[in-house]
């Protein structure tokens, strides 16, 4: 039991530590809906993984990255407004995933676990995926911090100053895709985006610089994981939703407490 909890805690912390800082970019660039779309499509990845009998994590990563690339291409063509496009893709991918899963007669999969996450089902391999993927994402985030931020602040200025804006935008989308694929096990496809944006939004209240906001977002995410797990252990609540409720509570506390006067 203790080992189970430790693995859950380790996995959750690994995911939250990466989802927080990346979530800051999702908030700044208003990519929440983009994250949702990728997350919803992850279920399709699970179904395909079972059907083709390949590693599930791999299937999800490949599908998310593929969808991110499709999105970038479609966005450039400007056939249809981006939010409409995302809405279409998000819900058709989710439905397609659910339909595909229903074809898997001989395999019983716990749909609830995929939709809402099951922290306690994290295995040793999952931990490798979380920390491997997490380290890569973190390293890229640190290495490309300035270009990423310059692009977020103003794409045209960044481009004129010589930053490779297109490549950086793609990098950010891929990072989000990888984090979603990795985080799916923890909080499920319906809740992943919340683990990215809620800690980041809470962190905004406490920060004066982008670095602060990204760091605090990671820390707040970790606190939410701890709180969620603790609640889940004590009251036998579902772990994924408990983590999100905990993150939402932190958000409420940060925004209702009187503001400490910042030095301005």
């Amino acid at each position, binding site marked *: 039991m203790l080992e189970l909890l430790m693995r859950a805690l380790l996995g959750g912390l690994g995911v939250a530590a990466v989802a927080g800082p990346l979530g800051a970019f999702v*908030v*700044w*660039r*208003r990519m929440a809906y983009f994250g949702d779309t990728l997350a919803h499509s992850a279920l399709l990845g699970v179904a395909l993984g079972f059907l083709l009998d390949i590693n599930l994590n791999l299937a999800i990563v490949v599908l998310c990255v593929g969808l991110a690339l499709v999105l970038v291409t479609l966005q450039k063509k400007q056939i249809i407004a981006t939010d409409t496009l995302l809405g279409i893709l998000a819900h058709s991918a989710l439905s397609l995933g659910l339909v595909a899963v229903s074809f898997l007669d001989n395999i019983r999969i716990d749909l609830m676990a995929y939709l809402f996450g099951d922290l306690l089902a994290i295995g040793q391999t999952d931990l490798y995926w979380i920390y491997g993927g997490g380290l890569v994402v973190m390293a890229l985030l640190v290495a490309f911090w*300035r270009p990423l*931020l*310059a692009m*977020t*602040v*103003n794409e*045209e*200025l*960044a*481009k*004129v*100053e*010589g*930053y490779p804006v297109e490549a950086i935008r793609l990098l950010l989308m891929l990072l989000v895709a990888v984090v979603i694929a990795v985080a799916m096990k923890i909080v499920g496809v319906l809740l992943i985006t919340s683990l990215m944006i809620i800690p*980041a*939004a809470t962190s*905004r209240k406490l*920060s*004066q*610089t*982008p670095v*602060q*906001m990204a760091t605090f977002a990671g820390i707040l995410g970790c606190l939410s994981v701890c709180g969620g797990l603790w609640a889940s252990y004590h009251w036998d609540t579902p772990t994924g939703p408990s983590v999100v409720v905990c993150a939402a509570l932190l958000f409420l506390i940060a925004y209702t407490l009187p503001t400490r006067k910042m030095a*301005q």
Partner: protein
Amino acid sequence: MSTRLAELKDIGIRFGERQLLSNINITLHQGEIVTLIGPNGSGKSTLIRTLLDLQQPSSGKVVRHDTLRIGYMPQKLHIDPTLPLTVKHFLGLVRGVNKKQIAPTLAKVGIPHLENSQVHVLSGGETQRLLLARALLNQPNLLVLDEPVQGVDVNGQIELYNLIAAIRDELNCGVFMISHDLHLVMAQTDTVVCVNQHVCCSGSPQHVKDHPAYQALFGVPGADASLAIYSHQHDHVHDDSGEVVEEGHVHSKHCQHHSH
């Protein structure tokens, strides 16, 4: 003739069925201020974006000479309020910036006291100066300014134009900018290019002002009382614009663009 920095050659731009710009030829030189003027939707911003390589021309080409280094000031700065960012950090994002230059550059554009302020709380004029500082930090020999005085009151506009002219004198850089108001900018500009889908007329501010094509677009100068107030601003600078105000003209409808 001074060094050429960039040339727009026979530029044409189509958006689908619509020919936005055609046959535009402009050459930008070191030390010269070129002001682009034209009504809304005339393609001024698109032309600037073409020079910046943010927009591909449908025909013609942009020649950028080897020495060219552009400092760009966009029309507006929108930073999402969820992104906490101080002036210092904003300027630190310039690619390859020498951070020691940030404080002196802020002083140069007249906002040294705002270094640690959040960018969201700046006024219109302060934001424009911040953007100018960012353009300068790129160590440009050509400043490209898309409506640099946007959102600034008239006194502030004159100050900003004077500042831009002073920076040109100091750095001997070229300046290529968009303005809505020839009368405010004419004292500090060497060449005016009047654009409305094509180049209507170009030359010295005085030449353009008296040109029939310009007057057809913007009305007869001096006819509007609010313009007459400013027309004396530049009299003493440009000796050839002494005979500006001719009284008794009827205000043309085309002048409505002056109401901001």
